[in-house]
């Protein structure tokens, strides 16, 4: 919905707006996104985001790939948290097949998804620091993320496209000393949180750049269908891990951080607290790791019965949902990916009106979108 352009007519002074293209080649749009800004001086009158530069047609691809092959494509949606994409696809197919993965598989899945959430929020923390102008937090965040990627590399073989969570369970059990390495990483991470708080969270210049900017009211958040940390930043306590617990989340005790008035600062603060919660969840999952095999019995050629289903999980960027219609042969008839970043980006055109140019970058960074997921 393009807000109509307000013509500013001074009695004698005829100021006309300057059209500024933010992107698609721009360091702070986190990928290939173009925002057409109409500026009056430094104040923005209208903003129209333009997407589609990274559209790879995953929904068309899905229609001629078998169910296990689709996992490889799912890694490429939100490439910063491929584990969540794999998990949501496996949950959808397991719902169709009506099979329940064993206890140990659930625990392994929770560990991997939560570690992936920490890695994804670390990328947010680093790049948001750079958007506001501080360069050091980025390097510190990527140093921690490097440790997580090493853990993933040991367990699944790849650093970003894991393909680890499979339909009916997980690819393989943990390697021998993996749990020890994971625990030492968690200890290391716990010491880093106070440092992050002094470096960015407590920094008055940072607070001054983010407090009260890009305010998203609760009503706006709901009508724009915003989910995830952006919604919780506006104070609505909605987290799929608590509301519709999937793969044994109800066994873990963690609380859901919510912000107060939905500005960039709250969205940032919510993600930092979520990282701390994820560390707690991974610890509990590691303590209670049951024995037993890691895969349910799944036929080699998968033919789910007729029907349709909608499975959704709490991905780091919001509620990621898969709607599949199957007509009982080995390829899905129709797959639709409800991508949280695509829907969270819609609110950009209303929040940006009336802001300054340097706030555009702060607001866009605080929504934390990944273009792979926006364009699918």
């Amino acid at each position, binding site marked *: *919905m*393009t807000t109509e352009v307000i013509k500013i007519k001074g009695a004698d002074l005829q100021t006309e707006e300057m059209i500024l293209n933010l992107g698609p080649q721009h360091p702070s749009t986190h990928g290939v996104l173009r925002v057409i800004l109409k500026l009056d001086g430094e104040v923005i009158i209208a903003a129209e985001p333009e*997407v*589609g530069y990274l*559209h790879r*047609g995953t*929904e*068309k691809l899905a229609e001629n790939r078998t169910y296990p092959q689709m996992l490889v494509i799912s890694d490429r949606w939100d490439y910063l948290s491929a584990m969540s994409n794999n998990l949501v696809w496996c949950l959808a197919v397991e*719902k*169709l*097949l*009506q099979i329940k993965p064993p206890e140990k598989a659930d625990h392994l899945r929770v560990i991997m998804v939560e570690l992936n959430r920490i890695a994804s929020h670390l990328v947010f923390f680093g790049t948001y620091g750079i958007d506001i102008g501080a360069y050091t937090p980025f390097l510190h965040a990527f140093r921690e993320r490097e440790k997580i990627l090493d853990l993933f590399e040991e367990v699944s073989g790849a650093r970003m496209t894991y393909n680890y969570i499979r339909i009916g369970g997980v690819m393989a059990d943990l390697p021998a000393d993996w749990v020890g390495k994971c625990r030492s990483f968690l200890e290391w991470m716990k010491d880093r949180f106070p440092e992050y708080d002094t470096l960015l969270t407590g920094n008055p210049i940072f607070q001054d750049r983010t407090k009260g900017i890009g305010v998203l009211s609760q009503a*706006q958040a*709901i*009508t*724009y*269908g*915003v989910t995830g940390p952006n919604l919780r930043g506006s104070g*609505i306590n*909605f987290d799929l891990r608590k*509301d519709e617990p999937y793969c044994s989340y109800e066994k873990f005790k963690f609380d859901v951080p919510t912000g107060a008035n939905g500005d960039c600062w709250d969205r940032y603060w919510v993600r930092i607290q979520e990282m701390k919660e994820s560390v707690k969840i991974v610890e509990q999952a590691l303590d209670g790791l049951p024995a037993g095999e890691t895969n349910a019995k799944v*036929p080699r050629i998968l*033919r*789910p*019965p*007729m*029907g*349709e*289903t*909608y499975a*959704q999980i709490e991905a780091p960027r919001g*509620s990621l*949902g898969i*709607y599949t*219609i199957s*007509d*009982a042969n080995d390829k899905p*008839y*129709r797959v*639709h990916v*409800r991508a949280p970043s*695509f*829907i969270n*980006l*819609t*609110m950009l055109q*209303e929040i940006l009106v009336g802001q300054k140019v340097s706030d555009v970058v702060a607001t866009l960074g605080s929504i934390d979108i990944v273009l792979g997921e926006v*364009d*699918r």
Partner: protein
Amino acid sequence: MTPASLFSTIRTHISDIREIPAPEAVAGAPAHEGKPYRDPLLFVDCPASKWLDLARFLKEDPQLDFDFLLMVTAADYLAPAPKMDVIYLLFSMKHRHKMFVKLSVPREGASVPSVMGLWKTADWQEREVYDMYGIRFDGHLNLKRILMWDGFTGWPMRKDYVHIPDRYDD
């Protein structure tokens, strides 16, 4: 609220909508396929013309209060009868219940009233359905392609879409 009670409250207000029954196992289906599965939610089929006031009723009625539009998508069917389904998934933040609404429209020149006024998230999702399936949404303020580039001809996600080889096919 259970799907049945949901359906009855809606039925009292808007008469000509019908509930889509869950699919039963087709007689000759091989055993290993198992029973057809569908989410235990309410699936409602509504004619396109009645959709706008059904949507307004679902959103404003305090008992239902579907204030959150989770997803808008479409599906293209050739086999039993050529038709296209526009599928809405509605969710209520207060009552925490979900509901599917399907509008079946003809495959050529279909147009559905846009619900952009009620849920602003429909803006981009309806544009994506238009971009992929060619279903027009009247009342949409800015209906143009969102994922494909503007000069693209044809609706890519249709089952009978044939790709015109262009300079990218080496």
